[in-house]
């Protein structure tokens, strides 16, 4: 109980809310490295997954290659990258990007494959060309699964970004590593609580984004039967 009280009072000490080791700075660093990694990872993974899913080729190959990314331990990659790039955000972003890619490739590939062939035929029949079919028919239908991949990646990345502190980076991992080094277990718990909270916040906010992105038609499909009837009438 006394540990929890120490953690509680740590949060209420105003000294811990500013300066280069204050919560706002560490939180911002954590969000920054996580966001950069997820964005870079998405820029690589999504086009690959979407195109392969759309054309239905080399899917197994791509998924297997990107899945080896899951087998590489982030910590090992981080240490090797540190030897190559030295101090800075480079190594951690490389390690986190490698972690972010596999779920997004797999999910976006599956999302595109799972689009109902009848819908694709219908699109073709109505005169959609290939690109228009992909952008205006398949992608909107694939949004829920693609977003699920992004969410998985982002939560993993936020949780793993704590490793940055091991190679003298910033972020919330600083509290865990420094707390361990000085045997201040309250500080370690503070770090763990903050990372967990940030991971939850990431999940919730991306879920919110997904609600906005998912086309109304799919939302209606998933709506309860009672509401379905009424909404279809107004649609």
């Amino acid at each position, binding site marked *: 109980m006394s540990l929890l009280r120490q953690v509680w009072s740590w949060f209420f000490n105003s000294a811990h809310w500013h300066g280069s080791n204050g919560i706002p700075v560490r939180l911002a660093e954590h969000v920054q490295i996580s966001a950069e990694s997820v964005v870079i990872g998405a820029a690589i993974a999504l086009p690959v997954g979407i195109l392969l899913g759309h054309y239905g080729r080399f899917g197994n190959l791509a998924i297997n290659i990107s899945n080896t990314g899951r087998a590489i331990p982030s910590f090992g990659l981080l240490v090797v990258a540190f030897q190559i790039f*030295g*101090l800075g955000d480079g190594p951690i972003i490389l390690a986190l990007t490698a972690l972010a890619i596999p779920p997004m490739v797999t999910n976006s590939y599956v999302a595109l494959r799972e689009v109902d062939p009848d819908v694709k035929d219908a699109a073709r029949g109505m005169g959609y060309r290939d690109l228009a079919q992909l952008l205006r028919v398949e992608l909107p239908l694939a949004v829920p699964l693609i977003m699920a991949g992004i969410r998985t990646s982002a939560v993993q990345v936020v949780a793993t970004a704590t490793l940055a502190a091991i190679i*003298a980076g910033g972020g919330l991992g600083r509290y865990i590593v420094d707390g361990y080094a000085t045997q201040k277990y309250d500080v370690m718990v503070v770090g763990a609580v903050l990372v967990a909270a940030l991971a939850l916040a990431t999940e919730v906010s991306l879920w919110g984004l997904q609600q906005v992105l998912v086309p109304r038609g799919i939302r209606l499909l998933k709506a309860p039967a009672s509401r379905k009837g009424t909404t279809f009438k107004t649609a």
Partner: protein
Amino acid sequence: MIRKTGSTWFIAALTVLVTAAVACGGTTSPGTTSKGTITVAGFNFPESSILAELYGQALAHDGYTVNYKLLLGTREVVAPAIKSGQIDLYPGYAATELEYYNSGAGEATGDVTATTAKLNGHLQSLGLEALTPSAAVDQNAFAVTKATATKYSLTKLSDLTPIGNQLVLGAGPECPTRPFCQPGLKTTYGITFKDFKALDTDGPLTRAAFKNGSIQVGLVFSSDADLNQLGLVVLQDDKHLENADNVVPIIRQTVATSEVSTVLNKIDAGLTTADLVTMNGQVELLHQDADAVAAAYLQQHKFFS
């Protein structure tokens, strides 16, 4: 360029080996009667092997038969060995030895004479003795790059007092809470740094941080092999913040005749921290053998003449 320096070092290493062979030949020449056998031990790191070789070769030159037990282990292995008489001599470090033999009572200070005197107080009942400590130290030290040293004309830690607020300190994450580190620099020297960067204690992160300029002052050990190679300058601890870990021979009283003491004291009187850095560099970075490096040092400083 690298190839060229490589071959230069290779030739240097060969020269060292040859001189070592000559030196050894000299000491063990037939017809010399031994003055007795002395067993010299060292801890399990290169610097200790070099020091043990320095002591051992000097004693061998003086006519003793020397057995070596190098890389014997940690102090937890070496100290019981000397207490039981399995070894006769090892190169110790004053403050650390004191804190070992007094079971961590915290008596060690930055004053090497006082620290050695207290150490001898604890060693006496064990039949052991610490001889005269050397000026050479292996202790926590704060380093800056040559560029920083030139820019602010820094040679000692007290030079940092007026300009500390422009510099970033880097060390292990525990530094802000340890008396020998950030708090000690504040109370003893009045240095307040612009910021602190948590790295590691004298490891690769500290070296990388010096390299990319994210720190200007970093914690190292004073006799680190790569200080010269990295272009780092250790600032002199002029107010004795750090415990006096000067090199000092720990020897069994029965072995410590005045002749043996004279030989060992002569080595320690000549040895400097810079010598340690150089010799550690030859062993750890150029992969020369500790005995050859020690022999070359003794040759160069005319201990064999």
